[in-house]
């Protein structure tokens, strides 16, 4: 099934799904791994919880498929559903998300350069565990943009679509988030 639709773009695949619901599993195959990682990185540790959230994400995606606007990337749209669904989960459990990065991903943050010169924002000696802790201590608005920018490697327009904030605000939040992260790391050291 997956192979059958492999060559189709997201938009073409959606058109097929609207006439044949079986084709929807191709969308699930295409995005499941990425969304699973994203939900985990947002702080859902339990694999059962991740699976429940994923199911809800895909069912919502199917139900609201016709609301998808072709002028935006489908990946941003489905990430947005996953993002909202994950935060709904935290709200329902009255839990605060805990950032969960593995060591190699923590390195992504260590490679961030400051805006004004070629210096790195952080000391390369910083432990990824500290990056995790520092990220956890950040305000949600900073944590979300930093995660999408440096771990999920989304561009500003995609982050704007996922978080539903103006592109200009994305740039501001990333800039402020980097400063906040540096301060939080300095406190940890």
């Amino acid at each position, binding site marked *: 099934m997956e192979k059958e639709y492999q060559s189709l773009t997201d938009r073409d695949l959606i058109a097929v799904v609207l006439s044949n619901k079986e084709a929807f*599993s191709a969308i*699930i195959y295409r995005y499941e791994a990425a969304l699973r990682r994203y939900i985990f990185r947002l702080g859902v540790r339990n694999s059962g919880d991740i699976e429940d959230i994923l199911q809800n994400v895909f069912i919502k995606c199917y139900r609201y498929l*016709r*609301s998808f606007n072709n002028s935006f990337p489908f990946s941003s749209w489905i990430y947005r559903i996953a993002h909202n669904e994950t935060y709904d989960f935290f709200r329902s459990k009255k839990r605060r998300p805990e950032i969960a990065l593995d060591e190699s991903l923590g390195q992504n943050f260590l490679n961030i350069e400051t805006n004004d010169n070629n210096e790195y924002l952080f000391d390369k000696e910083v432990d990824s565990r500290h990056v995790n802790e520092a990220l956890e201590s950040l305000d949600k608005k900073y944590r979300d943009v930093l995660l999408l920018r440096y771990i999920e490697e989304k561009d500003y327009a995609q982050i704007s679509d996922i978080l539903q904030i*103006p592109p200009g605000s994305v740039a501001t939040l990333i800039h402020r988030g980097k400063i906040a992260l540096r301060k939080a790391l300095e406190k940890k050291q």
Partner: protein
Amino acid sequence: MEQKIKNTIAEKVIKKIEEEKVAPLAKWHFVVKDNTFWALWLVSIIIGSCAVAASIFVFLNAGWQYEAITHDSFLNFFFDIVPLFWIISFALMIFLGYYNIRKTSRGYRFSFVLIVIASLLLSFLGGTFLYSIGVGKSIDNFRDPIPFAKPIIRLEEDRWNNSDKGLFSGVVKSLDKKSKLVTLEMSVGIEKAFSTIELSDRDLEFLTPDSRVRIIAGLDKETNILVACAVLPWEEPGIPYTPRQIHLPQKLESERNRDLERINICKDVRPYQRYKEAIITN
């Protein structure tokens, strides 16, 4: 293992879709929702424009030219006329406009500042247009039934129906030049007579039958008769773009001196003193 999990999720989702008969919602559902928010934004702009039109009307017809007569200080006057009702309504509409735009499918792409500036600009343009076609007064009158939000015209009528201050307004019903009495109809069925003994010729010119006038008067305690000190016209609210014109008499010094000799009761009437100081002598 990974393939197994993948299949499980896909299978579970497809099964759930079938079991719960989940179907993609129709396109019109989203189109209607989106357009509703755009329409609500438009409504907030229209109401905001009405608030602007009414505010322009209020500011241009607040009775600035009589401020010295009707109020003790400019600050009192200013707080009296500020159309808080319209300003609050306008601010509320700008906020609602922002909220509705953000609820549209692409609304999140616009920044707060952009939405607010666009809403302000459109409301001001709309408000200026509405005022220019002459509906500012009708819109302002709309707040008549609301407590503590009297229309500016009603406020002015109240100000000029204040016997404690010696301020009156009404329509000239009769003018008896022999007995030097003028009768004004203050409101339906209520008439008041004023002695014109202390009025100048220029004041008397305003006292034509059926014309609406303002009178500053003092009470002659011996005869218990109201003595008119000055007569001013009651201009109709501004025509578009122009506030009411001031038709106050410009007096020569010799005339002013004659006034000073002529007046008796009026010299103790405070609004009249203010009228002389602030208007005639300017």
